[in-house]
């Protein structure tokens, strides 16, 4: 147990004990769901049905069901894909990067953020499948020895790198999430009262005993997985950005794309984490676990990444002007003042300007402001991808080909429906799995047990001093 300065915020409030933590967090699992859960779950199921309907319609009719044309061949599908992949990044950042940085505030939010990652990647993958037009040949981007002679995928194509990056990302995130769940699943198993529960939770707990050796293994594997996931946070969205940046299209081909996409992904991901957690801490009464200090930290991340993204917008605009390349210059003027100007300015105001409200510490800890801001961030980041994709394509190299793009009702339904898919999975998750990492939260609660632990070290008395006293003076 490391020493903490008394000026730091408590990360678990309300004088919780170990058994309080277990009771609070297993409550939704062991009782029949609340009314709120049923309403939310039903709504998302209905929305999921919309998604199924619209996607099925697309598969049956073909991509003619969408508003694509000869000039704009990529629009809503890829916008939604990039949007959802980006959402996932906050989960990996919280669980992996913040673990490496020893940020303890991650402990009560990492579980739900990781779950969010997995569901978001599922949503993203669904757009890849549906935009292929012929999803039954979706295995073609995988380099399999095949019946077509020596035909292989084009390894030079960033789209193929994307297939590798995203499938790796999904697998590692899933393993990371699952490994972290094992001790908590074991807790649920030990508390189970029915045979079925005992069997299923016991099955997924993989014989966890809680011995020192298993804990040691658990910590080592967490660090190793964090080490593997950290480059993944960067690589996945970098490669997504290369889908655009390796091209010659003005507005797409720019070297800042990889880090700029990663910053944007973390920004949008934290937007979604805030949306979920601000609700969860109210509805599930987790205010002692997801405290104002957590909200404050997340708001700061939103502000920093939002400003980084804003800096990238300004850099792109500046360098286009500086470059002297008229096509670059036109692409950016067209973004800001062309027919899609409203999309550009929505993006600018949601992503760069709005997050500046978080300079105020009152705004950072006010759940209402945070919730509104999180929605603004989600909207802004969706529009960012729309702006990048559609405005760069719709006025391409030959003015005779210039066209406008408008989504059809099918496309809009798929987008709305994908939120149904996401929330459907999320509601199942909070019902059947502990949505806060009990084992880790227990390691940071300020209890008397804590003090006992310090007795084993040489500096016990000084460290157990009351909060509010500065040590070392």
């Amino acid at each position: 147990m490391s020493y903490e300065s008394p000026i730091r915020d408590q990360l678990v409030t309300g004088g919780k004990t170990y058994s309080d933590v277990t009771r609070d967090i297993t409550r939704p699992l062991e009782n029949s769901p609340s009314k709120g859960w049923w309403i939310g779950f039903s709504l998302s199921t209905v929305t999921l049905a919309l998604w199924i309907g619209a996607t099925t319609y697309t598969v049956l009719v073909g991509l003619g069901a969408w508003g694509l044309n000869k000039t704009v061949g990529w629009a809503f599908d890829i916008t939604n894909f990039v949007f959802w992949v980006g959402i996932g990044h906050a989960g990996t950042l919280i669980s992996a990067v913040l673990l490496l940085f020893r940020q303890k505030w991650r402990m009560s939010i990492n579980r739900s953020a990781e779950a969010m990652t997995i569901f978001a990647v599922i949503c993203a993958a669904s757009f890849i499948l549906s935009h292929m037009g012929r999803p039954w040949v979706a295995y073609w981007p995988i380099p399999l020895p095949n019946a077509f002679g020596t035909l292989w995928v084009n390894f030079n194509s960033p789209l193929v790198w994307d297939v590798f990056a995203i499938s790796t990302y999904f697998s590692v995130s899933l393993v990371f999430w699952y490994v972290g769940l094992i001790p908590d699943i074991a807790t649920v198993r030990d508390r189970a009262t029915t045979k079925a529960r005992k069997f299923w939770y016991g099955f997924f707990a993989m014989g966890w005993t809680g011995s020192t050796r298993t804990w040691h293994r658990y910590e080592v594997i967490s660090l190793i997985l964090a080490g593997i996931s950290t480059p993944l946070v960067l690589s996945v969205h970098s490669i997504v950005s290369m889908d655009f940046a390796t091209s010659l299209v003005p507005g797409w081909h720019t070297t800042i794309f990889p880090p700029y996409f990663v910053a944007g992904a973390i920004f949008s991901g934290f937007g979604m984490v805030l949306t979920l957690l601000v609700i969860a801490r109210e509805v599930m009464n987790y205010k002692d676990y997801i405290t104002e200090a957590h909200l404050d930290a997340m708001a700061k991340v939103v502000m920093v990444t939002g400003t980084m993204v804003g800096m990238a917008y300004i850099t792109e605009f500046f360098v286009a002007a500086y470059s002297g390349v008229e096509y670059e210059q036109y692409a950016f003027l067209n973004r800001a003042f062309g027919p899609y100007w409203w999309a550009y300015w929505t993006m600018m105001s949601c992503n760069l300007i709005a997050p500046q409200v978080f300079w105020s510490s009152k705004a950072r800890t006010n759940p209402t402001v945070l919730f509104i801001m999180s929605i603004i961030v989600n909207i802004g980041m969706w529009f960012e991808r729309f702006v990048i994709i559609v405005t760069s394509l719709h006025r391409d190299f030959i003015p005779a080909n210039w066209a406008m793009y408008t989504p059809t009702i099918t496309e809009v339904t798929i987008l709305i429906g994908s939120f149904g898919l996401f929330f459907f999975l999320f509601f199942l998750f909070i019902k059947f799995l502990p949505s806060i990492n009990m084992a880790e939260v227990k390691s940071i609660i300020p209890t008397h047990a804590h003090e006992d632990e310090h007795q084993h070290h040489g500096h016990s008395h000084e460290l157990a001093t009351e909060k509010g006293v500065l040590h070392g003076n």
Partner: protein
Amino acid sequence: MEHAEVHIREEKYTITSGNKKWAFGLMIVGLILAAIGYFTYHPHIEGLSEHDLHHLIQKRFWANLLVNGYFFFIISICAAAFISISQIANAGWYIAIRRIPEAMSEYTLIGGPILLIISFFALPTLYHWAHDGIMTEGTSNYDALLASKSWYLNKPFFYIRMVVFMGFWIWCAHMFRKYSRNEDEIGGLVNYKKTYALSAAFTVIFGFTFSMFSWDQIMSIDAHWYSTIFSIYNFATGWVSALTIIYLFTHYLRSRGYLNIASDEHQHDLGKFMFAFSVFWTYMWVSQFLLIWYANIPEEVVYYKDRIFGSYKGWIFLILFLNFITPFFFFMMRDWKRNKISGYIVGSMILIGHWLDVWAMVMPGAMNLATDPSDTHPAGIIKVASQGIGLMEIGFLCLFAGLFLLMTLRALTKANLYPTKHPYVMESALHDVGI
């Protein structure tokens, strides 16, 4: 884990005669080497006139000054950025070594004016856009593309930007040191809070202004060329180098019996940072190179034509080896990050690698000779192949390294070697990296 008894004590550093020998020795030897290099450099390149060759000597001289002036300045300002970022991230572990980046940032007081003077002379010599008449229509060397950049690339605006940006950074670095030293006197949280507020402002403003600073100082040497990631790449260069120097100073001071609360744990974490940000630097390098190489647009790819596919090829691969392979494989191991000897070896290799990288960013563009645009020279430049690393390069590096060392060591004597009354000092003293 057993912790030894912790004593927060007031340590003062005194400059040893060995320190002085090294610092002044480097400066004197550097000056001599640079002078020999300068007077013995007689390039013979076919097709170039006597006048051009003479010009080349001047170019190499000023380019070397620019490389070192820029390299050491961005290191010292990134040391200030290290303080401000750690501060707003509420980091506690680094307090034991905080006075090292503070001391490094004191170099800006002299490094800033030096860079300004270098720029004053280097501008007409090295920067194609700053040549007389190049932006005036009708002159023989008129370049329409460069003329279209005159709203940004013009001398008054260049100097205004430089003075304002550097002035603000140097002032912030000064205030960080002042607050920190004041804290040793009075304790409490007043200075901590002031530093926090200033750090937030500095970090945001630094992010935007450093971008422009790197475009001005380095990117505009290749005036036709542009890359949006360039500033982040340059920040990575300064940041990794600053971390490396902090790491090396920590090893040195500990080996002399100072920094009683710093341990292998701090060394380990600094080593991890060096590892992580070396990978970050490589990520930036790859992002810039891969995208430009892949798209193969002539205006952009010309930058790598000289560097990775031209006479600088060997150097570029050496840079990648020193900046990526070395930290990646050696600093992956726990013990190598903690051990002094391996730390010195890997740290020096990283520093040499990043210095070479700045050299390779400056030289190819700076050594090109300007000529009137014609069918044979459409860009208005005659390419000059790499002149390699000679006595001039080594000499100026030693000169600046000696100066940097002297300034940092002197700054270290001005306050306690670690802030004794910082609210996180105990956290840092009991720091433990865990498994």
